[in-house]
């Protein structure tokens, strides 16, 4: 694992959290939507909060796909759950929301789970993978050594 790869994992957490918050903020401006008002949903991207939110979520997706290209799914997924922790901590320290003891316990469990996985290998041996032979030779990751 290089520094760049940890940066991508951090990007997954940060951009999904920021994207969701921005979308929520923008949708609050626009009010509720119904099935009869679908054109309004298309115009929603004109709202700057929503537009930046979508841009952030696209960045999140790019980071997620990049991470999946060199790490196992079971390695990357726990990193995505850190977003829940980040939202709670932002709520606590910036918005002074009260976090109940159960939620602190939840935060601790998620952090422990992520730490557990991050300390292990990011890719488990790919020799048995059915797709490793059919993948183009020149793009098989250097990290996927037998």
């Amino acid at each position, binding site marked *: 694992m290089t520094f760049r790869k940890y940066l991508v994992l951090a990007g997954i957490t940060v951009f999904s959290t920021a994207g969701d918050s921005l979308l929520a903020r923008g949708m609050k401006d626009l009010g509720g939507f119904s099935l009869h008002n679908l054109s309004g949903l298309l115009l929603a991207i004109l709202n700057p909060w929503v537009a930046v939110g979508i841009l952030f979520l696209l960045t999140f997706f790019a980071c997620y796909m990049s991470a999946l290209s060199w790490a196992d*799914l079971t390695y990357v997924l726990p990193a995505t*759950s850190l977003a829940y922790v980040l939202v709670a901590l932002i709520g606590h320290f910036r918005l002074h929301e009260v976090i109940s003891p159960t939620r602190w316990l*939840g935060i601790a*469990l998620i952090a422990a*789970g992520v730490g557990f*996985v991050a300390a292990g290998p990011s890719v*488990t041996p790919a020799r048995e993978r059915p797709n490793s032979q059919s993948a183009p030779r020149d793009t098989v*990751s250097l990290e996927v050594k037998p």
Partner: protein
Amino acid sequence: MKDLYAWSAIGLIVLASTTGDVLLSYSMKRVGDVGELWKRRGVLAVIGRVLATPTFALGLMAMGVAFYSLLFGLSWGNLSLVVPASASLTFVANAVAARIFLHERVGRRRWIAALLVAGGVVLMAV
């Protein structure tokens, strides 16, 4: 009856998002390390190769199904039930699916992590 609808929506969300994650992960493993490809051939080669992987489109479709199931689930059940239940079950289902379909070695370390995260997500929503 409403509970039954909510739980079937949760089941659908878990099934669809697990399918989507597995397909996307499979596709990206076929594409290979995106960073290296980008360095050697440029960003257009990366995008082209990702889009040329048929399972990628299937994975995106499955993610779309998961998103709409979530919207339906939210119209039948409470936010505080549907979101944490589907999120935490998805973590466990993904560990099982990654082991079976992606042949990842889900050792004790990753099982514990999946269960810790799943439990943590539930507690966060209580």
